[in-house]
């Protein structure tokens, strides 16, 4: 060993690029020392095109540090491609080269040109991000690194991290913050933002004292770090002094009929910054889930927190491809195989949806297939290159999913073996939920147009298999005397008069698992379950819309107001409280009268202005640019108001507003300005959604509107749906 080098045990936390393109490894050793080490890491990209264009590229690139070669490599289908391989000394230089060539030679197809850094490092070294390793360095450069961990470890040791919480005293989109709160260990600092100089002095002092590894903020991406950049450009919050904060601009995307908005981002180097308001699944998976995603996918922690699970599953597929020397295209060129229209109609279908039986049901078992679609992809070997080849070896997609499925199942089983109060439960739940989301999106990415390894025929093969398996499960249930009340893609709701306990369901579960080859789990047995009618026609129920209580007291609801993002908190709380009230009874009709009384009380609270204005806030997605609305609704009005205030709302953003007597308001109104009749109708409608299917309230017991003034009955539940919609429209 070189006497100038030192060896440590520790963790590889992250990798990033310096301005000169050098890869930097951020490592933490067991003594608590952080190391930001330059990493010698050449990267090769591949180009394909006409010989003329490739020769032009060859002649154009004269950098002596760039290695050029003609190579033959294979794609996912095993087809050979003759390529120009360009090896740059660092990943940053390879990236810059690719962007330059994309602009100057747009005719060329590129491969392995946009792989995430963490993915490349994981594949080349075997060290996962946040993984234990042994590393050797000379103080500046990483000389050697060896993995002591696997991304599939069930119980990996986590590095000790210094966490700083950071949040303003108010929402910056509504009003300029006055105070910045910082929480570190047991300390809570409250810094007034003005005057600026003392604020900055205090901030820098706290920053230096805490030396955080992770900053968990509210509004850090869109407000705090841009504000800091402007107010104190000389203050570098990074641990790496050679780099400033890495800002990424906001984006609006249109995908699958939805407008998606990605807020601006502020990434740190040598530290992490996660903005809870801008992290896709954070509320569900927290830091434990984000770390799990980073460990498994190779996406850095800051990207894993912000990017959709689709980016994670793409990273996993890239890992498999890179490991097996399969080319990763930047753009997938293959078109669909030509077909006939009857073939298209027969195959272009989704999962099986079996209309629910309307009404109140007791003793209903909910049976769920565990990760059905990924399991189908693995069991049936569905991958772009295996279609039409029944004897093909496992394809890239199944090879990618197999360990992910295995780990998720293992975590789930571990979780189920622990008592609910075990301190490990929240972490395990978060980790397995994070993996669940990867599995949930992997099917969608099989059919996603921009997916590197997507192919619509394989997407169709999965749904065809899923429909068949669900029909098999239905037949098995009926053979055992169950009535099938509802089926939805990967779950069944069944009833048998003698099936009171989980043990009674075991023969059915085992039969389904045996026949389909996919694990199933009993979500629970409902004491009672209601499939309410559709607004459009009272004799029809709606798929995946129900509410009920399990025998263990858990309440589950889908497709009703409290599950929708645009329902104000007060309305959602009212509906949730109704469910809790009904859940106390053996049969929901036993508490209906009490429930209607509770609704009346809630409406009376509105009448008395006793409801916190914050709980009346609506949140609606802006689906297009405000100027593009032909028939403006609340979202458009809210957007125009924000524009007038100097905020520029983007399509895909979720806008908050209130209904007031003067119309839509984007800032919190005074209590006496609120349009309480509007909210009363929303409460009534949410209540009717739950209670009307049980026992309609006689007209003489219905609350009357307006709440303050001339009285006429609320007719929301009794009128035609179109009129009901008019009551709640702007």
């Amino acid at each position: 060993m070189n006497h100038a080098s030192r060896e440590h045990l520790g963790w590889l936390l992250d990798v990033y690029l310096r301005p000169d393109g050098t890869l930097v490894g951020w490592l933490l050793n067991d003594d608590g020392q952080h190391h930001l080490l330059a990493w010698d890491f050449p990267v090769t990209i591949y180009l394909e095109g006409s010989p003329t264009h490739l020769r032009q590229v060859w002649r154009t690139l004269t950098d002596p540090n760039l290695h050029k070669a003609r190579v033959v490599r294979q794609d996912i289908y095993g087809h050979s491609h003759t390529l120009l391989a360009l090896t740059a000394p660092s990943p940053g230089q390879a990236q810059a080269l690719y962007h330059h060539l994309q602009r100057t030679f747009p005719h060329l197809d590129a491969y392995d040109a946009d792989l995430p850094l963490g993915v490349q490092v994981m594949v080349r070294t075997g060290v996962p991000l946040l993984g234990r390793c042994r590393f050797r360095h000379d103080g500046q450069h990483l000389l050697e690194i060896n993995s002591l961990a696997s991304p599939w470890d069930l119980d990996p040791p986590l590095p000790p991290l210094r966490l700083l919480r950071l949040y303003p005293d108010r929402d910056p989109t509504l009003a300029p913050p006055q105070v910045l709160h910082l929480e570190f260990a047991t300390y809570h600092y409250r810094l007034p933002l003005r005057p600026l100089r003392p604020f900055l002095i205090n901030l820098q002092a706290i920053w230096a004292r805490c030396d955080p590894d992770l900053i968990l903020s509210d509004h850090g991406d869109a407000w705090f770090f841009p504000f800091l950049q402007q107010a104190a450009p000389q203050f570098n919050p990074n641990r790496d002094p050679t780099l400033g904060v890495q800002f990424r601009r906001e984006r609006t995307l249109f995908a699958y009929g939805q407008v998606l908005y990605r807020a601006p981002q502020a990434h740190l180097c040598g530290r992490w910054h996660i903005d809870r308001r801008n992290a896709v699944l954070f509320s569900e998976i927290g830091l434990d889930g984000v770390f799990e995603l980073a460990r498994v996918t190779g996406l850095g922690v800051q990207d894993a927190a912000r990017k959709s699970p689709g980016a994670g599953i793409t990273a996993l597929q890239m890992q498999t491809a890179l490991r097996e020397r399969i080319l990763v295209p930047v753009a997938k060129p293959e078109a669909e195989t030509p077909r006939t229209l009857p073939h298209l109609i027969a195959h272009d279908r989704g999962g099986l949806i079996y209309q629910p039986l309307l009404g109140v049901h007791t003793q209903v078992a909910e049976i769920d297939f565990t990760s059905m679609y990924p399991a189908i992809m693995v069991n049936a070997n569905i991958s772009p290159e295996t279609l039409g080849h029944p004897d093909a070896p496992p394809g890239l997609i199944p090879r990618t999913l197999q360990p992910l499925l295995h780990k998720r199942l293992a975590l789930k089983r571990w979780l189920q073996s622990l008592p609910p109060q075990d301190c490990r439960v929240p972490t395990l739940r978060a980790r397995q939920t994070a993996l669940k989301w990867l599995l949930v999106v992997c099917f969608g990415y099989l059919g996603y147009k921009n997916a590197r390894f997507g192919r619509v025929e394989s997407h169709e093969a999965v749904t065809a298999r899923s429909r068949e398996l669900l029909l098999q499960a239905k037949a098995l249930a009926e053979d055992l005397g169950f009535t099938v009340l509802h089926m939805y893609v990967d779950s069944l709701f069944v009833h048998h008069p003698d099936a009171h306990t989980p043990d009674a369901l075991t023969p059915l579960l085992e039969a389904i698992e045996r026949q389909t080859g996919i694990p199933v789990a009993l979500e629970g047995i409902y004491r009672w379950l209601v499939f309410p009618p559709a607004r459009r026609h009272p004799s029809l129920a709606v798929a995946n819309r129900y509410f009920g209580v399990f025998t263990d007291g858990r309440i589950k609801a889908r497709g009703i107001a409290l599950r929708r993002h645009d329902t104000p908190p007060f309305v959602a709380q009212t509906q949730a409280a109704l469910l809790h009230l009904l859940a106390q009874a053996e049969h929901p009709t036993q508490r209906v009268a009490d429930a209607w009384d509770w609704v009346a009380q809630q409406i009376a609270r509105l009448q008395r202005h006793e409801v916190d204005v914050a709980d009346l806030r609506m949140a609606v997605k802006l689906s297009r640019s405000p100027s593009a609305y032909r028939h403006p609704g609340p979202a458009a009005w809210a957007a125009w108001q924000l524009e007038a205030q100097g905020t520029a709302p983007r399509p895909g953003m979720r806008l908050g507003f209130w209904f007031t007597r003067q119309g839509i308001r984007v800032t919190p109104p005074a209590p006496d300005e609120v349009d309480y009749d509007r909210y009363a109708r929303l409460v009534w409608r949410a209540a009717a959604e739950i209670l009307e299917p049980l026992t309609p309230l006689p007209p003489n017991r219905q609350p009357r509107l307006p709440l303050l003034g001339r009285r006429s009955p609320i007719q929301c539940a009794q009128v035609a749906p179109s009129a009901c919609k008019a009551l709640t429209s702007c």
Partner: protein
Amino acid sequence: MGRTVPTITQTLNETEALLQRFRRTLRRGDQILLDDLLASAHRHIAAIAETQALLPFEGALLAILLEQARRLAQLEQRLSDLEQAWSAHEPREP
């Protein structure tokens, strides 16, 4: 990528929209009966989809007939139950 063929639900809704002029001309009572008939097709969306028909309305008509057959069977059962109950309480001749 993914689905481009409309769902059966969407297709039936489109068909119902095309029938609006027919519906409008009916008496109110008949309009309600027509709505019930069309709604009954929605109870068997999955089965209609499984037919993979080029013209899904054929499957919808079969679903409507199925619902009519079910109602008929339920009515016959009720009638039978009522007749049995009546004959059990019928006064005997002296």
